[in-house]
């Protein structure tokens, strides 16, 4: 009761004070003026921030539109492949994501095994919800320290929670990086050519525009003075402010941004594409200048090799040191791959199917992916085999048709001619080209095939740099060199030049060897120069492909160990193999029996999916080849053994193949010979242990055996098959032995 009376008294006094003292104090004329001034200042701040954001974003939008127009950035195709976008979000939006980071951490740690240990030690990993960045960092350090202490303290820790500890430490390191990015003033996006740096930056710029955060987007090539001057020119300040009061204006801007809790992000794309010294020298000065203002940040993007060779040193003196973010460097999940493909298909209106093999090749480079879909826009043909050279050819034609003033083919011819002449295939000095620098720059702006690179010559006395033109990918270079060689040779009807160059490459094991020989063969075959192609295959078939893979960024990954065989099988053709090719296949099987397994593996897959070349090619090549049977038997036995004891990830394809054989009885008609049987059994057996379950559950497999038994004229084989069937029905493990018995029989009877 007394408390209630007291409370009533206090409320009365407050009302009295508000009604008399406070109101009379507030509503005198001085206070009124102060309130009006304050309101005016607030409105002024809001207007200034709004105007600044609007003007800067307008310019960023213009550049984005230009990129969209050139096809450099396509909104619909952007997908977050890895964490790089999230890291850039943390960098450009800053504290807005702080709570998310804390929540993610606390959710993660909530039920981990480490928490059980921590409870015993009366410790908590939890980061308080409203912690400041400094507190979060301290807590992360504290948690790391605790993990170290506790793992040393408990002998059984490694058994109990070592894996959880590693996982948690990874999470902490990501958290640490995100926190550093909140505060960092400069970050550098690094990645290889064509893996989506510009696309990512465009997307970040669009994101900032959507968030109504001020943003300036600059393409390095447009910078002709120092970076600072160029950026200042873009500021929407009156000229007299830029000239006389820039520092004051920047301080004001920083205050405005601080009040509105926003960051102004300056994005400088592709610093490696501007070779002017005045630009490169000004980078560190610009970073130093910007670092004075906490709410202004810069993102640079640069190709990995340039960054290491040239730009890393330029960022050395920048304080605080810039944060490096690598793009698309990590593993891409199957779900992401499916999504990327469906998005590309939808965007380019491509409705065909893409085979697994082609899919794998496409994901080796986002650039190849882009070229592939650009070339196949609006089509509905299935892609069973990806012929990279056809993609390059069609792409170059497309660009040539688009460009009116300059000719891409001429420049490409020029570059490859110089490479062939000098027998140097890495790059060509820009000064050696017969084209104007302006035209080269025009071409570089509009194509994805050629790019400019810096070549460093390290000397004992001084280091020099030369600007050179190179092909974006080794494989495009190989294709174009082969194309030029063929053009020269076809014109003269003399192929000695081609043989000379190939011999030089082959003898010195140079990086273009494999690609150039391969593409020369494809071309010769297509044009019907069969004698020359035969000679080429004979001369250069034993190239060590492994060496080549280790030393280049080649996109194709052949499934055949033998180089000659890989050329024959991957050559685009109608349904026809020449006699010398069939002989080569047979010879390879005899000399290198593992080739048979590779052929079986790939051709049965093609057979299942209706692709060419299929099993018929192998059967044709094996006609009258009695000598190959012992090898077949030997290696199939080995293969069966390994399949029996190991997991076969591609079993679905083989299961489909057997289904296909069951559905299409023509494959096992009267002409079925033992070789077909071998292939069938091999295909069946590649299922390994899975096949046992299948055979027990599904009568159709027993039926197929029964079918073979009925058709078999050979008494001994008939008996063997009967025996196999009975044994399988009784005991599924018998399949392995039964298969080997049949192979024994084949081996004995066909030698």
């Amino acid at each position: 009761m007394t408390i209630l009376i007291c409370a009533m008294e206090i409320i009365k006094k407050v009302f009295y004070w508000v009604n008399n003292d406070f109101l009379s104090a507030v509503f005198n004329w001085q206070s009124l003026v102060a309130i009006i001034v304050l309101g005016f200042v607030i409105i002024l701040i809001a207007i200034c921030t709004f105007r600044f954001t609007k003007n800067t974003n307008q310019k960023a939008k213009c550049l984005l539109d230009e990129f969209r127009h050139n096809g450099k950035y396509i909104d619909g195709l952007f997908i977050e492949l890895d964490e790089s976008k999230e890291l850039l979000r943390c960098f450009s939006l800053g504290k807005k994501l702080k709570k998310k980071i804390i929540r993610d951490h606390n959710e993660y740690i909530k039920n981990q095994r480490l928490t059980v240990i921590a409870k015993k030690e009366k410790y908590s990993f939890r980061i308080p919800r409203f912690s400041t960045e400094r507190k979060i960092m301290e807590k992360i350090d504290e948690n790391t320290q605790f993990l170290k202490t506790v793992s040393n303290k408990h002998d059984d820790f490694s058994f109990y929670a070592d894996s959880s500890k590693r996982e948690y430490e990874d999470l902490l390191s990501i958290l640490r990086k995100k926190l550093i990015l909140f505060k960092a003033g400069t970050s550098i996006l690094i990645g290889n050519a064509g893996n989506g740096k510009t696309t990512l930056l465009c997307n970040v710029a669009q994101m900032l525009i959507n968030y109504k955060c001020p943003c300036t987007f600059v393409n390095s090539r447009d910078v002709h003075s120092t970076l600072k001057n160029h950026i200042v020119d873009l500021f929407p300040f009156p000229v007299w402010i830029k000239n006389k009061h820039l520092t004051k204006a920047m301080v004001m801007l920083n205050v405005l941004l601080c009040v509105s809790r926003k960051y102004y992000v300056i994005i400088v794309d592709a610093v490696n594409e501007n070779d002017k010294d005045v630009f490169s020298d000004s980078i560190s000065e610009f970073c130093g200048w910007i670092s004075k203002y906490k709410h202004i940040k810069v993102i640079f993007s640069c190709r990995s090799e340039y960054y290491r060779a040239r730009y890393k040193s330029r960022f050395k003196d920048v304080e605080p040191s810039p944060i490096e973010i690598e793009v698309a460097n990590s593993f891409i999940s199957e779900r992401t791959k499916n999504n990327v493909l469906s998005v590309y298909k939808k965007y380019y209106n491509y409705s065909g199917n893409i085979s697994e093999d082609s899919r794998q090749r496409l994901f080796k480079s986002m650039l190849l992916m882009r070229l592939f879909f650009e070339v196949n826009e609006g089509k509905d043909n299935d892609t069973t085999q990806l012929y990279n050279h056809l993609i390059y050819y069609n792409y170059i034609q497309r660009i040539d048709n688009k460009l009116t003033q300059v000719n891409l083919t001429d420049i490409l011819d020029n570059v490859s001619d110089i490479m062939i002449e000098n027998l140097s295939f890495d790059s060509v000095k820009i000064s050696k080209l017969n084209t104007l620098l302006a035209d080269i720059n025009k071409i570089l702006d509009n194509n994805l095939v050629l790019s400019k690179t810096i070549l460093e010559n390290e000397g004992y006395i001084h280091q020099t740099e030369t600007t050179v033109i190179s092909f974006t990918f080794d494989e495009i270079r190989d294709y174009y060199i082969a194309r030029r060689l063929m053009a020269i040779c076809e014109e003269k009807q003399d192929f000695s030049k081609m043989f000379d160059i190939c011999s030089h490459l082959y003898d010195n094991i140079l990086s273009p060897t494999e690609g150039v020989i391969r593409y020369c063969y494809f071309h010769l075959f297509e044009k019907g120069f069969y004698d020359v192609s035969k000679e080429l295959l004979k001369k250069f078939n034993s190239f060590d492909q492994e060496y080549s893979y280790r030393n280049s960024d080649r996109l194709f990954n052949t499934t055949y160990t033998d180089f000659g065989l890989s050329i024959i099988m991957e050559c685009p053709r109608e349904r026809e193999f020449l006699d010398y090719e069939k002989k080569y296949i047979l010879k390879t099987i005899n000399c290198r029996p593992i080739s048979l397994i590779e052929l079986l593996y790939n051709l049965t897959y093609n057979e299942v999916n209706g692709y060419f070349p299929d099993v018929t090619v192998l059967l044709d090549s094996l006609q009258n080849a009695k000598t190959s049977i012992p090898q077949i038997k030997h290696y199939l036995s080995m293969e069966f053994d390994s399949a029996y004891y190991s997991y076969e990830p591609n079993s679905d394809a083989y299961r489909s193949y057997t289904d296909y054989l069951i559905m299409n009885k023509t494959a096992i008609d009267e002409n079925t010979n033992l070789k077909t049987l071998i292939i069938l059994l091999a295909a069946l057996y590649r299922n390994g242990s899975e096949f046992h379950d299948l055979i027990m559950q599904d009568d159709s497999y027993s039926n197929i055996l029964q079918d073979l038994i009925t058709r078999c004229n050979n008494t001994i084989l008939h008996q063997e098959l009967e025996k196999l069937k009975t044994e399988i029905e009784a005991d599924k493990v018998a399949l392995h032995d039964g298969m080997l018995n049949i192979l024994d029989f084949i081996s004995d009877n066909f030698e």
Partner: protein
Amino acid sequence: MKYIIEKNSFSVSLFVYTYSRKINLNSFLSFFGVKKCTYFGYFFSRLYNALFCRALDLEKEYNKYYKKEYPEYSDYLSKKYNLSEEEIKDLRQGKIFYLKCDSSSDSIVNTLCDDEFFEQFQKYMEAVYENQD
């Protein structure tokens, strides 16, 4: 109630489309007939943690952090979480719960997450949602 389970030899990812507060450790353990403070109770707690502790309420997260960036909710699901069009259609119904767990570092979880477990797990999820209705 719909959900997808992606399972390979390295990780288990679970996408639950509808959110229910009835998913908790106690209901999980009691469904599988395991007592909390026992040897198997400990294993199943680990399994539960691996499946559920990194759960995200996608819709909530979208509204809070990504709405301005991705004006369309479907864009957010497709571009950030790589969900297919069909999955997005399903997700559109009701509140959304997204789970992604990587059990690669926990051998016990990998062992317990076999096909038989997932059959039972499906029943558990169905039971949770039936009770909710």
